[in-house]
């Protein structure tokens, strides 16, 4: 893919640009959290319990009097970390499994793809729940478990790309030159198979953020007092009749973030799709 043409096509897509800008903004927010947040996210102020949005607390306070806006700003760090680390792990596993299966074919392919089928049989959220229940819930465990349960899509994508690429004449030509298997995989096959992986990884970040929120909401994710969008929602659930802001703002943050990654992923997909004309 030609970089300049990719960018030209991407830039014309308004949704994709919106997604990109919002993703960039979420990066800035989480990196600059200590300077952006108006309060310490863990500062308990029993004089200011469950305040509705007001001039001092724009997004209100929770039952312990902590500032919701500050907690959401710091919570974005968790979401971002989980999103990128677990998707990075899933992508690495998927690339490895998919390359081996697609390159060597035969029995290797057969066994690895049956492993993929097996992993896809488990309802992955309950698998994650079970694993987290055994291990202790922590942000690192969550990232690893999400990573280990979401690599199958990438593996299938990479395998399919390899199956079609390995018959291409430039790959056969490299073989005729005497290229080693590693060289064929890393120089000739992988770089040409990465575009769909990029798309799926971007969409995967959205999925991982959702999973982390759900786990934290159930109390099996990031443990209080560390703020995460999921565990702020838990407090919201207990007070939903008297404090709508406790559910509304973290929900909005999750919605906007997930949506922006989806827009971005779709935008990349459309920009690299050779079937779409300029």
């Amino acid at each position: 893919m030609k970089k300049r043409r990719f960018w030209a096509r991407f830039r014309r897509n308004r949704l994709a640009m919106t997604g990109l800008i919002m993703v960039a903004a979420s990066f800035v927010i989480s990196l600059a959290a200590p300077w952006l947040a108006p309060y310490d996210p863990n500062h308990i102020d029993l004089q200011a319990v469950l305040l509705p949005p007001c001039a001092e607390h724009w997004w209100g306070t929770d039952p312990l009097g902590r500032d919701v806006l500050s907690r959401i700003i710091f919570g974005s760090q968790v979401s971002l970390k989980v999103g990128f680390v677990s998707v990075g792990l899933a992508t690495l596993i998927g690339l490895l499994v998919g390359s081996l299966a697609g390159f060597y074919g035969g029995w290797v392919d057969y066994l690895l793809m049956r492993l993929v089928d097996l992993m896809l049989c488990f309802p992955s959220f309950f698998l994650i729940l079970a694993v987290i229940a055994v291990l202790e819930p922590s942000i690192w465990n969550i990232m690893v478990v999400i990573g280990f349960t979401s690599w199958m899509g990438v593996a299938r994508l990479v395998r399919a790309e390899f199956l079609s690429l390995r018959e291409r004449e430039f790959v056969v030509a490299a073989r005729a030159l005497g290229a080693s298997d590693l060289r064929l995989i890393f120089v000739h096959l992988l770089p040409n198979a990465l575009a769909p992986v990029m798309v799926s990884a971007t969409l995967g970040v959205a999925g991982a953020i959702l999973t982390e929120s759900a786990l934290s909401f159930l109390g099996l994710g990031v443990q209080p007092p560390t703020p995460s969008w999921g565990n702020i929602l838990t407090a919201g659930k207990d007070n939903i009749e008297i404090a709508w802001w406790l559910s509304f703002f973290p929900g909005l943050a999750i919605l906007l973030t997930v949506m922006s990654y989806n827009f971005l992923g779709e935008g990349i997909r459309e920009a690299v799709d050779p079937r779409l004309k300029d």
Partner: protein
Amino acid sequence: MTEILLATYNLCRYFRVAGPWRKGPVLKAVDGVNLTIRAGETLGLVGESGCGKSTLGLLLLALLAPSKGEVRFAGENLHRLPANRLKELRRRMQIIFQDPYSSLNPRMTVRRLLEEPYVIHRLGDKNERRAWVTEILAEVGLGPEHLDRYPHEFSGGQRQRLGIARALALKPELIVADEPVSALDVSIQAQILNLLIQLQNRYQLTYLFISHDLSVVSRLSNRIAVMYLGRIVELGPRAVFAQSGLHPYTTALLSAVPLPDPTRPFQPPHLQGDPPSPIHLPSGCPFHPRCPEARHLQCREEVPQLRGTTTDHWVACHLR
């Protein structure tokens, strides 16, 4: 008699259609081929699409493992060699492909593309490689200004020149040219053919020239092999193909070559129908269902073997 560079003995390649897990019908892409390529010659290989020409080419270069039989390059059985010895031999044999759009890695610049052969075989240092690449580029009619461009910035003919340059980089002895001009405009075809002839003279190359176009093949081949459904049905020096007494299939192919003579009356094609499926080969001579001359019972029952008729001319037909 010149030295034999490459020889095949009863070379076969079968494909199982249903995949490796279930037993399915077997496709005999190459079936019992005995062929020799002499150092310095151009051997033309013609046949219809799907007759196994390309599969044979891949087998000869050990890019595909044979189901039966062997390939000997300079006396060594290619498919029994340890990996490092095979890699050494790969320097001596290269391939040029038909489709110039899929034969070059779209993510590599011309420089990386042409340096790759030297990188793989650990030849030369950085400066030497640069010099060699520039040299080889000039050899195929391109200049150093093309070094940092990507394949998509070139025309079909230029890309084919790049493919030839890559094949030439290691100074091989044998080049398998698999339909190297079929995807190009007629005007470009002549340029590429001339380039191939010129390079052959300069480097004493041996070519296996694969094509479905008999007129192209006869222009630069010393000997021609005709392939039908995985078998060689006729093999002989180019001059033989101007005579009569050929395999009926060859006669049909020759009659299909268009002659640029408007006064010549239109002749209906000699051959009817498509070749039979290589999965269900006809009994006896594989050509008999389409052969205008097949009357004998023998044609339907017995597979004809290649037999020498005159010196150096071989035909697989019961009637010749």
